[in-house]
């Protein structure tokens, strides 16, 4: 790390948001976006590990074709709860509600988000939803799959679907409020001189994701309400026996849940843009193309949902329309990948931990994105739909993409959040273990999928076993890669080196204030005079020496 080799000893600032006041009330009633981000960090880390335990149990169970570990219905509950947990209570809030919440107002040079009370409220709503979800989980679990397809979920299973739906509904409203806050803050609270063309790409990406949150989530909300009504009162809206159409549920569900994958990945892309520029010491290649591709993904993301339904009985014409539109969303993603790669060209590249995660992201997201083309190709999707190919694809995007980006971002801004540096060697090791474990876990699943192993199977045909064993082995490595950071992050709080305001020599307003920042972020409102990622000559003199 170039900056830490400099003979400068930093000291923690005397006053910052963490020591401004103490006590449980000062946290639970805080309106400081940074503290709310910390609250979110604890909450979603909890859910990440719960979901991770479910995942480990799933992988253990699949070690043998006969699935001796659990009964089929226990297994079904495990994958349902793994999905619900990870998607609604970890992935969707991960970057926006933790990193975005912390860093976005500072990046904008604002004192806080536009509506701090609503921000706090959104955390409480999230925790309310989490409580419902936990109640559903401990009181027998849910076994519908995270997709809740009717009429199975509305009339056939006997588990706590309604409780879980209410939990997800709450989590949804929490993300609506986060998105609302981000959008208003981005529009109305930028520092003087911070024009749209000077916004960091992290802001653009979170803005795009927020658009999806506010436009898509309400449709999920109404869908879940209808599902709960159908299940509770048997009103017939999705029940074929009463004239309802179960496929309509899928339309309404995927209208949100497909764009939702962009809620998950877009903020991650924003993180990557920050990291790649910083550790290449270079302005980003094609700024406006990356910025607008985020918006393009958000908009196009809404017109592709039925590619989850090519074999569900939708009309042939409609399937063709949705397939064609699905490719429209692939292009902006490709543009981003190429631009990040080009950013490294003739840079001054340093492979610190965040950069390792970022490079991992680019590679794995490329594979994940390209395998999405398989699933959007109509004739091919017929074969691989609902097989392990789909599982592998979205884990490449969600874990290989989003979780990598989240971890990269967490390492990148950890010094800013806590004022301390994590141990670099351990972190690099963890990044490497994660990368290897991830590929070993999920790459075999592409092959399994093409061989025809359907998803959500508690037992499977013996010929699939070898690849499943690989996958389970990989999962155990991956688990190590995820547990390590939890350990050394906690360690760094006490023993970590003091980071100083700008350990990476990065640009951006968040690095101009102290680490950790003061409660109102800046002692005086910053004025922006440069374009983002201005790693110009003075910078080189200062940082590279």
């Amino acid at each position: 790390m170039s900056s830490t080799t400099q003979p400068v000893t930093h000291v923690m600032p005397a006053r910052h948001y963490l020591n401004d006041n103490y006590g449980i009330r000062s946290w639970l009633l805080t309106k400081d976006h940074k503290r709310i981000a910390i609250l979110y960090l604890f909450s979603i880390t909890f859910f990440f590990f719960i979901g991770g335990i479910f995942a480990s149990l799933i992988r253990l169970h699949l070690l043998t074709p006969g699935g001796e570990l659990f009964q089929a219905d226990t297994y079904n509950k495990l994958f349902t709860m793994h999905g619900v947990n990870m998607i609604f209570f970890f992935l969707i809030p991960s970057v926006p509600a933790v990193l975005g919440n912390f860093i976005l107002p500072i990046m904008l040079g604002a004192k806080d988000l536009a509506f701090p009370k609503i921000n706090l409220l959104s955390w409480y709503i999230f925790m309310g939803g989490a409580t419902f979800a936990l109640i559903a989980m401990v009181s027998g679990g849910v076994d519908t799959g995270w997709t809740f397809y009717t009429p199975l979920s509305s009339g056939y299973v006997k588990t706590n679907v309604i409780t879980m739906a209410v939990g997800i509904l709450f989590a949804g409203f929490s993300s609506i409020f986060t998105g609302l806050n981000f959008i208003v803050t981005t529009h109305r609270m930028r520092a003087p001189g911070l024009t749209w063309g000077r916004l960091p790409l992290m802001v653009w990406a979170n803005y795009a994701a927020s658009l999806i949150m506010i436009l898509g989530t309400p449709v999920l909300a109404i869908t879940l309400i209808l599902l709960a009504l159908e299940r509770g009162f048997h009103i017939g809206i999705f029940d074929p026996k009463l004239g309802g159409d179960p496929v309509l549920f899928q339309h309404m569900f995927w209208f949100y849940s497909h764009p939702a994958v962009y809620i998950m990945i877009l903020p991650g892309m924003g993180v990557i843009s920050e990291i790649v520029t910083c550790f290449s010491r270079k302005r980003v290649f094609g700024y406006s193309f990356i910025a607008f591709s985020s918006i393009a993904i958000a908009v196009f993301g809404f017109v592709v949902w039925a590619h989850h339904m090519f074999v569900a009985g939708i009309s042939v014409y409609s399937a063709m329309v949705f397939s064609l539109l699905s490719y429209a969303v692939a292009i902006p993603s490709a543009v981003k990948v190429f631009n990040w790669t080009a950013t490294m060209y003739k840079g001054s590249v340093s492979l610190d931990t965040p950069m390792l995660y970022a490079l991992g992201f680019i590679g794995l997201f490329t594979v994940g994105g390209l395998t999405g083309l398989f699933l959007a190709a109509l004739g091919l999707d017929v074969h691989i739909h609902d097989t392990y190919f789909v599982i592998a694809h979205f884990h490449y995007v969600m874990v290989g993409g989003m979780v990598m980006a989240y971890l990269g971002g967490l390492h990148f801004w950890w010094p800013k959040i806590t004022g301390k540096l994590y141990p670099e060697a351990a972190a690099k090791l963890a990044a490497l273990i994660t990368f290897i474990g991830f590929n070993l876990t999920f790459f075999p699943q592409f092959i399994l999928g093409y061989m025809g192993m359907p998803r959500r199977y508690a037992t499977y045909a013996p010929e699939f076993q070898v690849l499943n064993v690989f996958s389970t082995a990989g999962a155990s490595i991956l688990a190590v890669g995820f547990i390590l950071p939890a350990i050394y992050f906690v360690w760094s709080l006490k023993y970590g080196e003091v980071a100083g305001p700008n350990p990476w020599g990065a640009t951006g307003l968040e690095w101009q204030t102290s680490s950790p920042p003061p409660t109102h972020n800046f002692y005086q409102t910053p004025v922006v005079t440069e374009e983002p990622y201005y790693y110009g000559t003075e910078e080189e003199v200062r940082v590279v020496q």
Partner: protein
Amino acid sequence: MTEGAHPTHKVYYLVFLALVIGTVLTFVVAKIDLGFLNPIIALAIACTKATLVILFFMHVRYSSKLTMLTVAAGFFWLMILITLSLSDYLTRGVIKP
């Protein structure tokens, strides 16, 4: 720009009058058999009424472009939801399996 300008009371009363007339008109037209035009007219009147409320009662006529864009985005996304869902339902069975 500031979203502070408001119309006069006279405008409010006129809009109210227009809304009442629109309501009565919807009611009357619904009783006359115009075939496929019935729902179209009903929705056209409803859209007009909604536009009046949005423009005057909600002051969008006097607001920034951003507000107008927000309103437009709402209806645009609603159209995405409706048209693309219908693109399935209306073309089902067109190609004989």
